Every structure is written in C-alpha cells, then in structure tokens.
C-alpha cells in the first residue's frame, strides 16, 4: 500500500493555554478530496498550516508522502512545499505585485523558465480560473471572488500534488462558490492531486468531498464518507450536516 498523502499521528497543538488539537490521528489517501468540517475556531485552519509546515506541532508527528514534516531541514521543507499549493482564506495575494505577477511569483522563484514563458504560463493559469485580462491589475482592484480565484491560480502554478484550501467559499455568493468548487474537482481529476479542504459550508463540502472529517473541541469526532457521517452516532455531526443542507 502506498504512503498516504498526509498522515497525522497523535498530533496535539496549543496556543498559550488554549488547546487547539488534542491527540488527533487520521490519514488522507493520495488523489482524494478530503474535507475538514467543524465550527469556526475549532482548529481546522491550524491543521492546514501544520501540513504545510507553517506551524509546528507540540507533540505527535505529521507525515507528507511518508516524509515526517517536523524533521525536515529548511531545504527539504522548501522542496516539499514546492509540491504543495495553499489557497488562504483571504487569498493572501501580495499587495506589492500585480495579479499576474502574483501568479508568476512561484514560477519565477522555483523554475528556470524564461520571462516570456513564465508570463505565458501565468496568463494560462489566469484564464483557467476565469481571470484573463486581469494580469496587470493590482490585487486591491479585484473583488473577493476574483482574488480567491487568483489565489487559486497561484496555488496551482507549480502543479502541486497536494492542494491545501482554506474556506474556498467564505464570503462568496453561491454561484461563484459553485464555480470554484467545480474548478477544484476538475483539478483533482485532471492532475490526480490530493485536495485538503477546510470549510463549514456543507453544500460546498458535498460537492467536493470524497472523504470527510469533523473536528470538535480539538478532537476528530467523526471521519468517513458523506454517507457514513450522515449516519454518525454523534448528534452534533448529524445536526451540523443537516443545518446547512438548504444553503
């Protein structure tokens, strides 16, 4: 059996006196879409940052493609990150660069392509997310949904094997949200990428997820397919899935 794309083993993490993750263990198979559900502030985003190595765990271990991320030196960590894409909740576009240069940034940093090639590739990426013609605009000129799409284009630039996505539909209208979800599913199937998506938007989760997990008070209280979770013995999980069924 191949290594799982991501594996958490008894991971705990706290900020000051606040415990965010308590002894969390799970794994994500390569090429699947894994959706993390949970209430706001339940530590979902922290898990994404731990996978990417932006935050260090207090105890336990995290392995990405079999490599323990906590034990990598800075160069190995950088190498691992080149195979990851991260879409932040606020998109986190660099204010000092234009939209197109934001997308081109990872290519410029991590490849030896010529300037023209990079521009071409960045334009393609922008086109893919429906932002053709926005290359020279400043990020501040874009709407929230467009920024998110530009952020996605940047995360996709290095054709990552693991895509980490924080709240893809937060602050977006349902139609835009649906478009982005569709885009993610397309990417998963086309590039055989692993998706790790954090959301509390149930319709969005239903559209994307192969596997789901529910995080409550630092514990992973349920894990499985959508069907399995709907049958879960935990009342809270069932309520959570139902609450937004209409939305």
């Amino acid at each position, binding site marked *: 059996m191949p290594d799982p794309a991501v594996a958490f083993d008894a991971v705990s993490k706290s900020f000051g006196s606040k415990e965010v993750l308590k002894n969390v263990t799970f794994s994500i198979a390569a090429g699947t879409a894994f959706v993390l559900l949970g209430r706001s502030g339940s530590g979902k985003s922290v898990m994404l940052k731990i996978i990417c190595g932006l935050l260090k765990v207090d105890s336990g271990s995290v392995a990405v493609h079999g490599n323990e991320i906590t034990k990598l030196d800075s160069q190995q960590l950088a190498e691992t*990150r080149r195979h990851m894409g*991260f879409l932040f909740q606020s998109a*986190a576009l660099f*204010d000092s660069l234009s939209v197109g240069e934001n997308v081109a940034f*990872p290519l410029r940093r991590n490849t030896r392509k010529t300037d023209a090639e990079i521009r071409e590739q960045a334009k393609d990426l922008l086109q893919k997310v429906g932002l053709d013609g926005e290359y020279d605009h400043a990020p501040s000129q874009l709407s929230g949904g467009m920024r998110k799409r530009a952020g996605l284009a*940047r995360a996709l630039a290095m054709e990552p094997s693991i895509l980490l996505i924080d709240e893809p539909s937060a602050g977006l209208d349902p139609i835009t949200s649906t478009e982005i979800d569709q885009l993610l599913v397309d990417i998963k199937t086309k590039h055989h990428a692993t998706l790790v998506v954090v959301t509390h938007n149930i319709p969005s989760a239903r559209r994307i997820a192969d596997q789901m997990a529910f995080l409550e008070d630092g514990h992973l209280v349920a894990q499985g397919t959508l069907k399995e979770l709907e049958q879960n013995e935990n009342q809270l999980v069932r309520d959570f899935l139902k609450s937004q069924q209409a939305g």
Partner: protein
Amino acid sequence: MKSSEAALEWFGGMSIFSGQVLRQSFARPVELTELLKQTFEIGWRSSPLIILSGLAVGGVLSIHTRATLERFGAESMIPTALAFAVVKETGPLVAALLISGRVGAGIGAELGGMRVTEQIDALESLAVDSFKYLVITRVLACVVALPLLTVLMNFSGLAGGFLAETMISGMSFSFYFHAAFSSLGFSDYIPPTLKTMVFGFIIGTVSCHLGYNATGGAEGVGRAATQSVVLSSMFLIIVNVILVKFIFFLYPGAG
C-alpha cells in the same frame, strides 16, 4: 504580566531577532533583486526628504552660529563651526531620525499588514524564506542606505549653511568649503558617517521585528507602525550616546 516584565520579554525577543538577522545576513543565497528594490525604496525615495531637511537644518544652524560668533568678531569661523556641527553629529542623527520616521513606519506597517493578511504565510507556502526575503533585505537596505543618506545630509546641510551665509555676508563658495573642511580630520568625518550603519541596523531590525511579528488585525498593524518609529528613534538616540563615547575612545583626537 507586569509591564516591566513585558518590556524585558519584548527586549529578549528583539535581541534574538537581531541575532537571527546578523546570522542570516551573510547566509546565501542573497535576495539581490529584493535588496535593490528596498534600497530604491529606502534610499532613493528618501533622498528628497533628506536633501530638503539638510538645506533647512544647515541654513538654520548657520544663522544661529552667525548670531553667536558675530559677538566675538569670528564670522570667518562660521563654516568651520557649521562643518563640525553638521558632519560630527547633526547630519548623522537628523538623517537617522528622519529615516526612522519615514522608513521605520513604512516597514512596520508593510510587514504588519503582510503578517495579518497571511501574505507572509503565503510566501512560506511558496517555498520562500520569508525572513530572508522580507527582513534581511530591508535591514541590509537600511544599513547601506543610511551612511549614504548621511553623506547627502551632510553636504546639503553645508550647502544650506552656505546659502544662508552667502546671502548675509556674500562669502565665496570656495572659501566656504575650504574653510569648512580645513579643520576637519578624517576621524571627524569617517567614524560619524559609518556609525549610521548601526543606526540603519537599529531602524531596520526594530521595525521589521515589530511588523514581522505583528498580531491583532488592522489595529495591530497601526500599533506596529507607531512603535517602529517610537522605539527605533529611542534606541538610536541611546545607542548614539554610546557610539559617540566609543568613537572618542578609539580616536581621542576626534573630540
């Protein structure tokens, strides 16, 4: 936590941060493009401010010096007195304070903003060493730009002094500059200019530290910007006292 404890803790964090800056400044690879960009922002963009302030400060100093020296009939000492005042202390210190205001606040706000909008995390996620990319380049740019801006300040200060003087007494350009530099020794000129590298390091590190580690949203960004100016100005004034003493210790003749 008591405020004194908090201050000490902050100072400890600051020291560790400075140590990291020093260690990483010489580690390869160098973010050359970004360094040039920051030198442009901090150096070139500050030069109009420095030149104008220099002219004004030099002019005002010259007018005051004249008022005093006139009483002793020592008007011909004006260029010498002004050169000493500007080159040895006023130029370096005023340049550093101006830059701490302009650049310190800028760095504090920029890095603070990047921190709270996750741009720093985004850099890291794109396999970029954000510390080297953002902090080292800014600190180095400050260290490089400050002595250069000080030179600019010194010369525009002397030029301002000359304009003020020649308007009153019609003193000639060549006499003025010859008299200004004739009493200066190398020890009056080089150490005070080079000591501003330390000022640059202080401005860069303090404001990067505050911005890079900012928390608390938009409000936190504002706080980082304000504190960058306040703390870097304060530190550089204190460090200046030590440096002046130190230079005097190294070059007793420079007093």
